[in-house]
Every structure is written in structure tokens, then in C-alpha cells.
């Protein structure tokens, strides 16, 4: 396992921001974490690389390539960030230094961890920029961020993130601020890099379509808890958890050509209420109060049910659970 998370809890004061029992990511595989605002998805990603806010307390275990990351000092983390784990964030314009040339920004990222003579450094930078499909890499070296488009800027950031050949790439909403025509290019690039470099990917977003497009496995988080985890197409097409199902039906994609005229003006499926603020989450199952299948049992925190690498935490899943004996238990 490249990444193994167990009983991860991140708290700020009395609030539990993240509560994940188990999450695994094999080498060279792509995991998507999907959730709305306040779901804790970004905090999860940040706590893996030690970028959580100072007030946050992280407990539990995050094992990366056999090494325990929880409790590492900032100094230790600086050796992990870059050569072991690369990160890209949402707004490329903000992540790049507007006063520094592109070439220099990339070479600094390399230079931090590898001592290379100037010539080799430059070659490596051009090579990286070419790998992220930026045309005319040599001329880009001297340009400034504002002279590049959003998509190009994000590619530069990806280049910086993979500069030292990390084994894990963490991407936090990297395509959210980009136009849809550019998004595809970036997603394709990330997919390709993951394959060619045998690099695991942890992709965080609120966009279901994007998560479906990029992930091999999907983890759904709500209110800080991971409510479902499994292979991508199973989570999307055969979800168990009520929230996953509700989220998917509230978020229709573009209908097929033949059906376009049927669905116009049709009411969309909604989820009752809205995501509560941190102090207003119900006890027991956090989705209580908004769930259509709620029962009394939901006042207790649901147990994790695991079937064949597909996990969920729901007392009243939307689809029947078949246990190991092959018997379908619909009362569960």
C-alpha cells in the first residue's frame, strides 16, 4: 500500500473536522475523495502532508510507503514534500510567484532537494515542462506567470509537483477554476503521469463528474466522515450509502442527445436541508435530518460494512447487502 490511513481524526477545538476509519491507496492507483464544503476533504489531504492549520490536532495513523506521517515535525515533512509527495492546489495563479520567471520557479523546486549543476538543472526543467505538454518549453523559461493561461499555469504547477519524482501526487481541486475545455486536458495529463511514473494519485474535489473521470476508487465524505469507499464505477452506479445516492441524483449530468428534450424543465432531485455548520451536526449518523431513509437506529453512529473492497457506513443502505454466504440480507 502506498498510503494507508487508519482511524484518522483531525480536530480543531471541540470540532471533529475529519474522522476516517480506513482508507487505502495502492501504488500507481488513482483515488478520488469527493465531498461538499465542510466535508473535511481538503483537511484530510492537508493533514497527510502536514499542512493542516496549527490549531488542528491530528491523531491516528497515516502510513505512506511504510513510514508513519502523523506526528512528523515540519522539518521531517520538508523532506517528504517534493521527493516523496507532490501537491497541486486549486488556484494556479495564486500558487505561482508573480514576480519570478517560470523557469526559475521550477528549478527552485528541483534545487531544494537535488543538487544538480546548472546545465543539467536547466535541461531537467525543460524536460519537465515538455512532460506536462507545454509547447515550446524553452521559451517559457523566461516568461512570467501572468503571461500564461490558467491551463498553462496549472501545468507548470504540475511540473513543479512532479519535479522530484514523488510516489504520490495530491491534487486539491486543481481543475475547479479552469474552463471545461481546459479541464479535460489537465485531467488527461494527470492520468497519464500517474501511469507513466507509477505514481499514486489522491484527487480531492466536490465535482462528481470530475471524480468519475479521474478516479479508479472513490471515497465519499460527509461531515468529516468517510461514508463510502469503493471502486469508482461501483460507487457511482451502485452506491450503498444514502448520501452518495442522493448526491449523485441531485447532480445530473448532460442527458444523452435523445433524452435532452425530455429532461428540460423537469424538477431536479434535491437533498432536503443543507450542510450544517460544524457545531450543528447531529449525533449518530451525520446525515440524519436530511436522509430519506432515516430510522431510529440512525441515532447511533453506523458501523462500517465491508464487502470486497467496497465499504460504507449506513444503517439503511439504498441497495441490498449480500453477505459472504451469498445470502441477501434486506433487513440490514
Amino acid at each position: 500500500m502506498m498510503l494507508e490511513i487508519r482511524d484518522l481524526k483531525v480536530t480543531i477545538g471541540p470540532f471533529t473536522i475529519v474522522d476516517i476509519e480506513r482508507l487505502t491507496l495502492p501504488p500507481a492507483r488513482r483515488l478520488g475523495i469527493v465531498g461538499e464544503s465542510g466535508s473535511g476533504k481538503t483537511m484530510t489531504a492537508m493533514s497527510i502532508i502536514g499542512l493542516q492549520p496549527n490549531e488542528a490536532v491530528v491523531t491516528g495513523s497515516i502510513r505512506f510507503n511504510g513510514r508513519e506521517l502523523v506526528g512528523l515535525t515540519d522539518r521531517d515533512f520538508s523532506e517528504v514534500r517534493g521527493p516523496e509527495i507532490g501537491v497541486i492546489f486549486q488556484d494556479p495563479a495564486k500558487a505561482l510567484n508573480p514576480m519570478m520567471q517560470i523557469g526559475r520557479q521550477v528549478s527552485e523546486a528541483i534545487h531544494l532537494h537535488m543538487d544538480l549543476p546548472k546545465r543539467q538543472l536547466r535541461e531537467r526543467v525543460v524536460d519537465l515542462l515538455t512532460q506536462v505538454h507545454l509547447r515550446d518549453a524553452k521559451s517559457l523559461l523566461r516568461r512570467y506567470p501572468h503571461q500564461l493561461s490558467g491551463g498553462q499555469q496549472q501545468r507548470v504547477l504540475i511540473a513543479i509537483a512532479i519535479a522530484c519524482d514523488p510516489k504520490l501526487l495530491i491534487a486539491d481541486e486543481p481543475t475547479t477554476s479552469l474552463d471545461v475545455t481546459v479541464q479535460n486536458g489537465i485531467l488527461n495529463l494527470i492520468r497519464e503521469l500517474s501511469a507513466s511514473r507509477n505514481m499514486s494519485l489522491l484527487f480531492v474535489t466536490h465535482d462528481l463528474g470530475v471524480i468519475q473521470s479521474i478516479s479508479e476508487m472513490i471515497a465519499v465524505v460527509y461531515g468529516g466522515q468517510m461514508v463510502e469507499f469503493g471502486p469508482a464505477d461501483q460507487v457511482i452506479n451502485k452506491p450503498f450509502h444514502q448520501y452518495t445516492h442522493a448526491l449523485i441524483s441531485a447532480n445530473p449530468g448532460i442527458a444523452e442527445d435523445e433524452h435532452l428534450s425530455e429532461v428540460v424543465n423537469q424538477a431536479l432531485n434535491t437533498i432536503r436541508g443543507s450542510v450544517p455548520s460544524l457545531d450543528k451536526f447531529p449525533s449518530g449518523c451525520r446525515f440524519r435530518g436530511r436522509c430519506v431513509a432515516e430510522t431510529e437506529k440512525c441515532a447511533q453512529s453506523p458501523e462500517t460494512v465491508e464487502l470486497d473492497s467496497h465499504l460504507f457506513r449506513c444503517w439503511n443502505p439504498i441497495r441490498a447487502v449480500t453477505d459472504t454466504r451469498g445470502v441477501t440480507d434486506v433487513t440490514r
Partner: protein
Amino acid sequence: MSLVEARGLHFRYPGRRRKQPWTLQDLNLDIERGSSVGVVGESGSGKSTLVRILCGLMVHQRGEVRFDGRYMKDWLHSDPRQIRRQNQIVFQSPRRSLDPRMTIRRSLGEPVRAIERRIPSDEEIAGWLERVGLKDEILPRYPHQLSGGQLQRVGVARALSVNPDVLYADEPTSALDVSVQAQVLNLLMDIRAQLGLTLVMISHDLAVISRTCEQIIVMKDGRIIEAGPMTEILSCSSDPYTTSLVQSARMVSLKA
């Protein structure tokens, strides 16, 4: 006769060098009364600018814009309050479009105060809230005490308070959680059905447009690439830009 018409519309932000390219170039469009029109395009295509000109908030330099048969410049000159009443906007970020120092009650009453020069009655305000599914307990509160979804409903209620003919919505759901987006979109569709409102919605999200708008306008670099029935344009457009836009959108949209 269309409700909103543009012919040869050109617009450029003032104060730039004279050889600066037009932000909007040679636009021609018609919006029929009661229709729902989606305006799509990438960032920088001029969608927001177009909407602001069509509703009279900004003035174009060349070409004509007509509202209900009358030139917009004429409206703005002789009857500006009327044009404001008939064209209202719902903005993208509900939190930023409400003055943080005003109570919800006050914010809701602003259009009536400004346009009809009177203070709205409690019954009226209650009616507006009901129309968007909100309870009157939120009236004395301030924006920071409400959720994004609630605030956007307040924005819609505020816009509808003067019974406009056209409601322009600038990315009304982009800043909202996924689970709340559907609620607001349903609200817009319901209201349009009930009041016979003309709805013009800007969105970068083609999926949203495909569910809520019967007509579509595709923009690129300040020009209108195509305009027409949504189903036709999304499924069998012959324009290469539109097709690539639709294709990209389909690739990142959910297929369940």
C-alpha cells in the same frame, strides 16, 4: 416582437487605448417573452458583460439594444426606474451580493424602496419569502448568519420583489454546494412557470443549462457563435467550437 433585442451590438470598456479590441463584437440576438435562455461560454467570452448591457446596467457604444420595442438608451434617458423594475439580476455569490451591514428585511425591501419609492409592507415581505420557500424568522438576521443556499433564495426573492419581466441570473449556483444547487435551480424553474418570467441564465456548467433552459446562446471571445433551441445546439450543432465545448462538457459531466 421580441422582448429583448440586440442588433450589431459592440461594447468596449471605456478608458482604454483606441485600438483596444472590442469586448463584445457585432452581437445580434432576440429573446422572446417567457423563454428561458442559457448563455454559455468560457471565461472571457463576454457573457457577464452582455447580460449587464441587456438589462441596462452598462451602456454599449455601437449598435442597438431594444427592450419591449423601445431603444435601451431611450429607456435609460427618460424612464430609468421602469427599466430597472423590469430587469432584475441574481448574482453569483449570494454572500457578496448582500450588504453585510443590512438585515435581511432591509435588503429585501431595497428594490421597492429604490424603484417604487415606498417602504414595503409586512404582508408583501411575507409573500416574497413564501415564494422562495423561506421563513420569516430570518428577517431580522444578517447575511453572515444564513447559509449560502438561504442567501441565494433571499437574492432571488429580492429580485422578484418588484415583479420584473426578465430575471437575469449570473452563475446563480456556482458558489453553492452541490446538494443546494438543485434546490435553487428548481426554485428558478418553478417561479418561471408560475409567473411567466423570462429567464436568462449564465452558466459555465452545460449540465445546468441543459436542464433549465430551452434556448441557448453560445459565446466566444465577445461574439455569439450560435443561438437557438438548446436540444438542437447541444445534440447536432455544426459549429466546431460548439461541438468541442459540448464534447468537453460531456467528458467531465457525471454519467450514472
